[in-house]
């Protein structure tokens, strides 16, 4: 109750935007991450410890509207493993058992790169804007291995959106999102887990000049293990229609995706 009263009161202050406009801002920010509809994304994940490359992982992610995504693991150590997410429902197909296993949200979070970081690429389906205000844009000043931080966007005016999860099963319960004011390109997100602790901060960039529409790089700086950071490259984002039945757990053991 108090939360909603606060939202209404803040809405009376100049500089705050709410309701449809806030939703539109979030939707505009999403459009820099994914096209509408079904898509296929090739993702490379590089994990660093103390700025030294520790692990490399590769994923193919199929995303459909209504919070459906399928992650195919392609790295040598994980090849054949799959994670299916249908809203707040999750299944894991392991290489050893070849058996789709229904898992809980906390089991989904286990593993080195949270599949939520890879497969959840939009905010508007998962979060609602609690408040929004104009702020000075944050700047990435840290040294990030293999990433030229000078190439990150450095706008001066941003909109800060405070997002809270509106559905179950998301990796982060709260997000503070910074969006460039003019084009509404995402700049940075502070990611908070259920306990209220800031788990990671995400920085978004278009570093690959061949892709002029979508964010192609996300840098995740771990706030809990401060020596760790992850660089996620979205190498190829392409619209791809796909049958609904591929998002049935029973289809995980089938081998029909390559020709799709």
């Amino acid at each position: 109750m108090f939360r909603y009263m606060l939202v209404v009161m803040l809405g009376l202050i100049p500089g705050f935007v709410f309701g449809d406009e806030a939703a539109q801002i979030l939707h505009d920010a999403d459009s820099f991450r994914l096209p509408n509809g079904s898509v296929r994304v090739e993702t490379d994940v590089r994990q660093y410890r103390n700025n030294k490359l520790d692990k490399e992982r590769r994923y193919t992610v199929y995303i459909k509207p209504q919070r459906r995504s399928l992650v195919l693991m392609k790295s040598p150590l994980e090849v054949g493993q799959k994670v299916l997410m249908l809203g707040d429902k999750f299944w894991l197909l392991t290489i050893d058992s070849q058996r789709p296993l229904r898992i809980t949200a906390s089991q989904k979070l286990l593993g080195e790169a949270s599949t939520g970081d890879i497969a959840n690429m939009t905010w508007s389906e998962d979060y609602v804007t609690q408040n929004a205000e104009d702020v000075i844009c944050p700047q990435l000043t840290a040294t990030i291995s293999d990433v030229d931080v000078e190439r990150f966007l450095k706008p001066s005016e941003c909109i800060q959106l405070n997002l809270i999860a509106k559905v179950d099963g998301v990796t982060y319960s709260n997000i503070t999102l910074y969006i460039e004011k003019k084009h509404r390109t995402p700049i940075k997100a502070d990611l908070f887990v259920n306990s209220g602790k800031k788990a990671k901060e995400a920085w978004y960039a278009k570093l690959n000049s061949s892709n002029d529409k979508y964010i192609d790089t996300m840098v995740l700086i771990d706030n809990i293990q401060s020596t760790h950071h992850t660089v996620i490259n979205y190498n190829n984002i392409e619209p791809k229609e796909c049958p609904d039945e591929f998002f049935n757990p029973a289809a995980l053991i089938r081998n029909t995706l390559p020709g799709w």
Partner: protein
Amino acid sequence: MRYFLFFITLGVGGYQNVFALEYGVVQYNLKYLLSPEYHEINHNSLYYPGSKLGGKDKFFSLKNELELRVQWDKIIIQSTLSDKGYSNLSYINQLYYDDAVGFLNFTFGKKVISWGVGHAFRPLDVIQHENRRAINTSALIGVPLISVEKITPSDALTVVWANPFVDHDRNKNESVAFRYYLFSDNYDFHFVGQYSRKNKTETGLGATRIANENISLFGSILYAQRYSNIKNSLILTDNIYSEVDPMEIREYTDAVRANIGLQWTGNSGFGILLEAYYDGEAYSQSDWRRLDRLTKEQVASGLVSREVMAGNVAWSSAAFYQDNLVRENYFMRLSYDNANGFKSSFDLLLAPKDGGVIATIELMYEKNTQRYRLGIRHYGGKADSVFYNIPESNVSWVRFELSF
């Protein structure tokens, strides 16, 4: 022939680049596995024939494996070259073709097809039999089959003709099986059935329920109209020794297999798994008591040479190769995953009827392309329990995997 098939697989891979993960529509995965194992013999076991002959206290074994997996569009080939020190072999784990015609999907070939619900025991695995008690295992070997499957966004019906034209094999027999799978918000439901000339009808159902973000509950039950098990034929005679292997497959009727469990996974990475299971096809307590009594008589009588006596004991020890050694079992696993490549687990399998205990600890660490495992298992409990009488007391292993 098997070597030939392995190198055919390798050859298909080599057509492009065997070490490349993906090249066009062909994907490759090559895994090398090296695993020394150290076994300590249980001299107190009634069933260790070596103790009657002054055999070794311990022995090493070394497992060397090369596993190749090639995915060429809708075809998957997975094959293994294995050297265990005392034997070399190569085999095809899987070789199958998946496709769809209209709204029906079909599979043709040799494929791993696991339908079970549970962790320590999966009663619904009517086609793919897997020894869940085994440690340091190799990749599963599939079953020859032809299957037709109808998948919708919310359910799936699968009909399988497994082991076509195969008969008279204890673990493989020709069957027709089906599974209906249905999922909803918090539930997965499985209904399975199988008919074979050997086992007649098997029917079962299972479910998984997601209780909240941390807890899942699961359970399944299977009824088998007929089943077979290995028994020592001497138990039914007045003789206590045999000159030929007296262990023979016997057929029985009406068995139930079931499990029920709970899994909790915390946000910290710690997890607890509790599972109780019942296997009506395993030896009963009275089966073991009869075999124990026979074995004690063989050891004590002194009517034959030590070699004949030890040979008979060794034959009886084949009873320990069953998937489940006793009918009633409680399984507990404590695990930890640091979300950074390190995992550990402590497993405890208890036999409540006779006080047997199997304890297993395994540590695992993953690097970029390598995986390391270190494990130890101890068989113990009460001195007259089945687990305590397993012919080895401890097994430890190191496992190194390198994947390309």
